C-alpha cells in the first residue's frame, strides 16, 4: 500500500516541481501538487462561467433582427481580421509551451525569449480586440444598443479581461525570471501560468466558431420560433 502511495505521488510530479520535496509547496491527498490542483479547479469554475456567457450569447444571437434595432452582427463582424487574431492567440499557446519546455530542460534564456513572445502575442490579440471594439462602437454598437451589443461585449469583454490578466501574469513571470527567480526547479510556477494561458486560448477557439464563424440566421423570426415551440409543446402534451 505504501508503495502504491509512493507511485501515485510520483504521478503527481508532472514536471519541474521537484522543489515541492524541499517543502515549497505540498501535495494534496491526490498526489497532485496543490497549486496545480487549485488551478484546474479554478479553470473548471471558469469553464462554467464562460459556458453560461456563451449559452446566453447563443440564445440571443439570432434575435437581434427580430427586434429591428441595429447594428446587426452580419454588418459588423470582420472574419479575416478575427481569423488573424485567432491565429495570433493560437500561436501564443505554442510559444507558452515552448517556454515551459525550455525551462524544464534548464534552458532559461530560451524560456525567457518564448515567455516574452507569448506576452507580445497576447498583447497583439488585445490590441486587435481594442480595435474591433472601437470599430463596432463607431458603427453604433454599444452595451445598451441591442441584445447583440449586450451579449457580444459581455462575452468577448470578459475574455479580453482574462487575456489582459494573463499578459500581466506573463510579464510578472518574465520580470521574476530576469531577476533569476525562475529556474528549472520551480518550473511548476510557469506551468500553472501556462494552464491559465491555454485555457484562455481554448475559450477563444469556442468563441471564434460560435460568435464569428457560425452564420447568422436573418430570416427566421421569433414568431416562427414561437409557432414551432407551441407545436412541439402540444405534441408533447398529447403524449401524456
Amino acid at each position: 500500500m505504501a508503495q502504491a502511495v509512493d507511485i501515485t505521488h510520483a504521478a503527481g510530479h508532472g514536471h519541474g516541481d521537484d522543489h515541492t520535496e524541499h517543502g515549497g509547496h505540498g501535495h494534496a491527498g491526490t498526489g497532485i501538487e496543490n497549486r496545480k490542483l487549485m488551478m484546474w479547479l479554478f479553470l473548471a469554475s471558469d469553464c462554467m462561467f464562460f459556458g453560461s456567457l456563451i449559452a446566453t450569447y447563443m440564445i440571443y444571437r439570432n434575435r437581434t433582427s427580430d427586434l429591428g434595432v441595429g447594428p446587426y452582427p452580419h454588418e459588423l463582424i470582420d472574419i479575416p481580421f478575427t481569423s488573424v487574431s485567432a491565429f495570433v492567440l493560437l500561436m501564443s499557446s505554442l510559444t507558452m509551451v515552448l517556454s515551459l519546455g525550455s525551462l524544464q530542460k534548464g534552458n532559461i534564456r530560451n524560456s525567457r525569449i518564448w515567455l516574452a513572445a507569448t506576452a507580445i502575442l497576447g498583447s497583439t490579440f488585445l490590441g486587435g480586440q481594442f480595435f474591433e471594439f472601437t470599430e463596432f462602437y463607431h458603427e453604433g454598437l454599444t452595451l445598451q444598443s441591442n441584445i447583440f451589443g449586450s451579449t457580444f461585449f459581455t462575452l468577448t469583454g470578459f475574455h479580453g479581461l482574462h487575456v489582459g490578466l494573463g499578459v500581466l501574469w506573463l510579464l510578472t513571470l518574465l520580470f521574476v525570471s530576469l531577476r533569476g527567480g525562475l529556474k528549472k526547479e520551480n518550473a511548476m510556477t510557469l506551468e500553472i501560468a501556462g494552464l491559465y494561458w491555454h485555457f484562455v486560448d481554448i475559450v477563444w477557439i469556442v468563441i471564434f466558431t460560435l460568435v464569428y464563424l457560425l452564420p447568422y440566421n436573418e430570416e427566421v423570426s421569433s414568431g416562427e420560433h414561437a409557432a414551432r415551440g407551441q407545436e412541439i409543446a402540444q405534441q408533447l402534451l398529447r403524449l401524456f
Partner: protein
Amino acid sequence: MASTTAHAQSSHAHPTLEAYVRIAILLAIITGIEVTIYYIPALQGVLVPLLIALSAFKFIMVVGYFMHLKFDDRILTFIFGSALVVSIIIFIALWTVMYFDAASVFNANMSLLPAKPERP
C-alpha cells in the same frame, strides 16, 4: 497495481518541443480550413456541424497536449470534464427553452400544461 505503475510512467511521457510545433501547425491549418469553408457556398448545408467538429478537435488538442491533460493524473481530466459537461447541459437546457420561446410555450405559471379555462 500494475495499472497504477503504468499511469505513473505515462505521467512523465510528455511530447517533445518538435511535437508541440507540429501540433501548433496542425491547429493553424485547421483554423485556415475553418475560415476557408466559411466562404464556400457549396458547404453551407454542412457548415455548422463541420465548424463545430473542427472547433471541438482544436479544443481537445490544446487541452490534451498543450495543457498536458492527456499525460496528467486522471482526476484532473475528471475535474475539467465534469465542468465541461455541466456547461454543455446548461447550454442545451437554456438554448432549448429559449429556442421554443418561453413566453409562448409556457403559460403564466411557467408550466407546459395549458392554462385552465376561466370559470364564468
